[in-house]
């Protein structure tokens, strides 16, 4: 395929040293997650329970949404409903205009990225500052997050140093993370204190109590929403959980899976606005009801956005989050995006070796690699496969169906590979050979070896 993920990943992959650095950084996070998972004997029970709670919630979603709305209203919050991203943007814009807000602080929210809310508000003269350090870095670099939990994981400290020197006036050449973080703290403190309103995402919404939970390590959500008069929380309808006590399951899984912490520094439960303030909660659909209707994809709505599937994915680690060209990259992004917009994202389910590691680490047991395979089938059915791949697959099917032909072609192939000159073997037709060497062809065949050493069957 000349476009899509492979093309978008090329520049990243070409810089071997950097790709290796990125790979190592994420593997480090994956290992921290493993230690946390191993520290709890009940880890697998927790995953099963979390998955079952999410499944249960989906079966009674309408009832739980209504319960949430009425409980939130009883707490003094206002719930808004948005079918599309543009409806959400409109609601948020009008709310902000109602308090004449010009400067808005936002804590991390992948949902508002999904809606391109910042750009929309900018058009209405409203300035949004992302306050999570990683998000602030990518915002200043005019990029999008490359990871849902570690937005600036693709950025080196030297680059952050240069960026902060240019925009925040830090010392030239300074790269110490402690120093740079302190500079961001001072810069964002001023933004917090001067904000007219605050926007956050939602990690969990509790139907039983009408409350929302936001998890951060930096404390940016708590500071952001507790100073100005208005707090707007934006959530996808899949964030809903039935009961307050369900949080015990999810808070134990989220940070352990995400960053290898036993819990985030701040797990903040908002039931009422701050004294004298107002709290608005916007619930977004944007295709989620369609996903819910797909039996084989439905479980992707269980996702709690921990990013563990990204940290473990051999393709993500080596190609970088930006190569996916989506708000949510990695394995879960390769399910969600093509499921919502198959034309635009049909290369993503193939950015996968089907190793299954994503499914193994997923805290809510989404069968990600099975779903990726399912979506590959739909891409093929829709005629979205490249011609070279289609032909190769048809040829392979023909050979594999006929043992005599397989035997013949395996024998001939061995010689062919050995004798074919490099310039033909690694021509443009062999996509697989880009940046890879074919393995040396063995002298004997497995069939012969097995006849000699193995069983009695042919």
């Amino acid at each position: 395929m000349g476009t899509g993920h492979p093309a978008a990943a090329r520049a990243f992959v070409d810089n071997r040293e950097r790709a290796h650095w990125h790979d190592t950084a994420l593997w480090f996070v994956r290992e921290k997650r493993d230690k946390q998972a191993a520290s709890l004997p009940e880890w697998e029970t927790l995953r099963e329970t979390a998955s079952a709670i999410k499944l249960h919630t989906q079966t009674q979603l309408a009832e739980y949404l209504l319960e949430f709305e009425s409980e939130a209203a009883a707490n003094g919050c206002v719930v808004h409903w948005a079918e599309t991203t543009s409806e959400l943007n409109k609601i948020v814009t009008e709310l902000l205009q109602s308090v004449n807000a010009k400067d808005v602080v936002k804590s991390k929210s992948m949902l508002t990225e999904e809606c391109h809310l910042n750009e929309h508000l900018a058009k209405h003269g409203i300035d949004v500052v992302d306050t999570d350090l990683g998000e602030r870095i990518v915002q200043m670099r005019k990029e999008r997050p490359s990871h849902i939990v570690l937005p600036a994981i693709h950025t080196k400290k030297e680059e952050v140093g240069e960026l902060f020197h240019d925009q925040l006036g830090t010392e030239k050449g300074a790269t110490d993370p402690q120093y740079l973080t302190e500079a961001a703290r001072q810069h964002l403190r001023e933004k917090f204190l001067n904000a007219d309103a605050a926007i956050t995402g939602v990690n969990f919404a509790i139907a039983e109590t009408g409350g929302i939970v936001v998890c951060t390590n930096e404390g940016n959500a708590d500071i952001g929403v507790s100073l100005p008069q208005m707090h707007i929380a934006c959530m996808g309808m899949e964030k809903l959980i039935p009961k307050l006590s369900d949080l015990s399951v999810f808070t134990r899984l989220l940070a352990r899976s995400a960053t290898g912490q036993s819990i985030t520094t701040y797990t903040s439960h908002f039931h009422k606005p701050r004294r004298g303030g107002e709290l608005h909660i916007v619930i977004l659909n944007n295709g989620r009801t369609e996903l819910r209707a797909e039996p084989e994809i439905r479980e992707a709505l269980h996702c709690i956005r921990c990013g563990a599937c990204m940290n473990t994915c051999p393709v993500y680690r080596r190609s970088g989050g930006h190569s996916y060209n989506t708000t949510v990259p990695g394995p879960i992004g390769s399910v969600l995006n093509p499921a919502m917009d198959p034309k635009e994202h049909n290369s993503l389910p193939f950015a996968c070796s089907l190793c299954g590691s994503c499914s193994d680490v997923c805290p809510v047991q989404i069968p990600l690699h099975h779903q990726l395979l399912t979506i590959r089938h739909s891409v093929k059915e829709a005629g979205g496969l490249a011609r070279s791949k289609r032909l190769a697959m048809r040829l392979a099917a023909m050979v594999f169906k006929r043992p005599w032909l397989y035997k013949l072609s395996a024998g001939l192939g061995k010689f062919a590979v050995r004798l074919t000159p490099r310039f033909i073997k690694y021509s443009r037709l062999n996509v697989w050979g880009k940046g890879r060497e074919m393995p040396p062809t063995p002298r004997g065949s497995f069939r012969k070896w097995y006849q000699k050493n193995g069983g009695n069957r042919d």
Partner: protein
Amino acid sequence: MVVTVTDQTTVKESILAKIRAVELPAAPHPLSDGLLADAIEFTDSVATFVHSAETVGACVHQCISQQVSEIWEEICKTHGPGLTAHVSIDGLVDNDLKEDGPHSAAELVVFGTSGALGVAENGAIWVSDEKIHHRVSLCLTQHLVLVIYAKSIVSNMHQAYAELQNVREDYGVFISGPSKTADIEQSLVIGAHGARTLDIIIVEE
């Protein structure tokens, strides 16, 4: 506001209709009493709590109730001159911020209050804004002090939420350690936006 009530009702009804159009096979809630069977429990939950809290960067003091005020004074002295405030700490007369606007909390050098419970598995303490004039004080202060009773420490989050049942504080937060970030090359930096340090005073009755 341009978004009228009718608009909102229509959007809501249409979303609910789309959900109801797809009936999923029944799947019961897996936890009938909210508790997970076989969740980890620690024989010495206080010692485990101390270890967890120190791992996430907190400084732990263990004492008897008569010593709390003395330790509070010491912590305030360590963090230097400046505005301090405290609420609901046994042995100390409340001294919260009095100004109306929450922005006054930006001047806080040390803020102290009590937590309802501590969680051994992760060093988190539950704090609510019930008695605190400005909830933002918890995060906006440079240094935070939280007092908990040793007997209020539970092993895991299941037990913690069981204790919090029927509690619907306006705002409540599990705080585990001082604020932190690792957004620059995965290097852990303590003191992101929230409190730079967390001192925990465990009162052993």
